[in-house]
């Protein structure tokens, strides 16, 4: 690592649609995948990221820069993540969860999964199938059986022993 020279090292990342991005090494190593490359000394030239497109990579880099500018304060970092994800649509979130997984960025991964869950929570089964591109593979009988099982899931709040 060339971090000791004083000038911040910059890495060049390449998306799968051949866009190039410059990012400070200190921000990029939030990705364990990139950090491993840096540590192995194979981050000298252009780093190709075959599973991430340019639009998603641009977002991820915005996140890397934003979050690494915040000092060690978990509350503030959480606030930043919430704000960063607040205006993302479902498709972008889905791309980001894949990118976060590929880049091995656990903090982004957690935040995006939670955001997707939050969006899904209020939607119908039909909406979820459409958004995820899933075909309904249940027969009407099987679907009825699943609904029958739902009668057992108890929605009441568990009674605590307090008071």
């Amino acid at each position, binding site marked *: 690592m060339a971090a000791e020279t004083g000038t911040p090292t910059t890495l060049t990342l390449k998306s799968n649609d051949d866009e190039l991005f410059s990012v400070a090494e200190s921000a990029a190593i939030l990705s364990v995948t990139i950090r491993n490359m840096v540590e192995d000394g194979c981050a000298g030239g252009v780093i190709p990221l075959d599973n991430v497109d340019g639009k998603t990579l641009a977002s991820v880099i915005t996140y890397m820069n934003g979050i690494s500018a915040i000092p060690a304060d978990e509350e503030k970092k959480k606030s930043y993540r919430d704000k960063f994800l607040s205006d993302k649509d479902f498709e972008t979130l*889905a791309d980001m*969860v894949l990118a976060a997984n590929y880049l091995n960025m656990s903090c982004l991964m*957690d935040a995006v*999964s939670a955001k997707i869950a939050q969006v899904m929570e209020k939607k119908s089964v039909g909406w979820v199938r459409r958004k995820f591109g899933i075909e309904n593979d249940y027969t009407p009988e099987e679907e009825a059986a699943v609904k029958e*099982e739902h009668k057992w*899931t108890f929605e*009441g709040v568990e009674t605590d022993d307090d008071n």
Partner: protein
Amino acid sequence: MDTLLCDELVQEIFNRLPPPSTPAVSLVCKRWRRLLRSSTTSLSLHFPPPYNPTTITSFSTFLTHHPYLSSLSLAGGAAEDPLIAAASSCPNLRRLRFWGTPITPSSLHTLSGYCIHLSSIAISISRPLSFNNWLPYFTSLKSLSIFITNSYTETNHNNNSEVKDSIFDHMGLSLESLSLCGILPGDYELSFLWNNCKKIKKLQFKSCESVGDYSSFSSFLKSLKDLQELELRTCRSIVDVILLKLAETCVSMESLLIYDGGSREGLLQFINRSKCRLKRLDVRLPLDLNNAHMLALSENLNFSGLACLRLQSCCLVTGEGLRSLGRTIANGLDELSLINCDVVERESGLLTSLGQILKRLRKLDLSYNHTLLDKELVSMLASCNNLVELKLRGCNRLTKTTLSSLVRSCKQLQFLDIMYCSRIEVEAVEWFLLNSPPLRRLEVEQSKLSEGAVKRASSKFIEIVS
């Protein structure tokens, strides 16, 4: 895209869904149903009658599809069948609650064979009580909560003297937490517990009129070396026995809770004689706790490390007692609750002096003091510069004046509850949100939130609880 997201990613998302909407996920497709089931570790189920081979089989099948289930809460059972069906399908259960019909010893014995890893059980049992034919078979059990349901039948009374000695009577159970509800005089069979539980750390009694056999119970208390927490709720007739015994022998207890039913004299003796270094005292004793107890608490140096003092509806306590106790525990007290205690409203200047004495206070709860006035609270807050949490729920007389003093004096305040404070209005809430930098959670009615307040809360990531 579904095929793009691998199983682990889909499960990551499922794990973050709030429990009520999780089951719907299995309706999406078969793959999702499989993924949901194999990522589920905890279920709360309701299995209503009819119970016949068909319904029971489909219930069991449903449960066997959850291979990693470790916690199950089952409600509404009018018979034992659902419990046994559940148990036989979930060999990995660690935690089981069954709210329904009392379970017979023989069913419990069966259960212990199916779920050998159970560490926590909450169940109802009925008289005649027996423990030795099932409890020892749960070898991993740490926490037991028992609700004793039915009333006495004649035969029980006649059997009182015949508690048979069996090989299990002195075997040492590894239970650490024991909670009992509904003990009546004559429940001598409990001596099995008293004789065999030596490792209890947390002991709870709820609506108990007796402890069964007093002699084995007092040796039980005497032998408890690790008792840390005791809770007595609505147990007037046994409070004395327990406290006096503990005052003599116990040194380890850190937390004591007594609600609704105490004994003035017993409590006083406990306070005078106890060698426990209590950290937490939580009492709701409108008729039993008075000034003498407060003074006694301040005189017994073992209590000088008290970190949390909670008094609810203790209307006999006066300012003299509170001030005197406050001076003794000022260095350690972190949390003070005076909920619905009319001394707060009755004695002008009390809060001011408590504020001056208790400079280290971080959490304060003055809820349901309906006639508490701004000027009393404001002059207390002026000294409480370390407050992190403040609850003022249901304090009807407080106004915007209180909020502005909070902004001035309590610069570290993160949690505030002003629910049902009818004189704190929309505009005051908005002003407070705009002016209180470190706030993280505000509890207030939805109707008191202006558009500006909502916007501010969301931009500053302040959680609003309505």
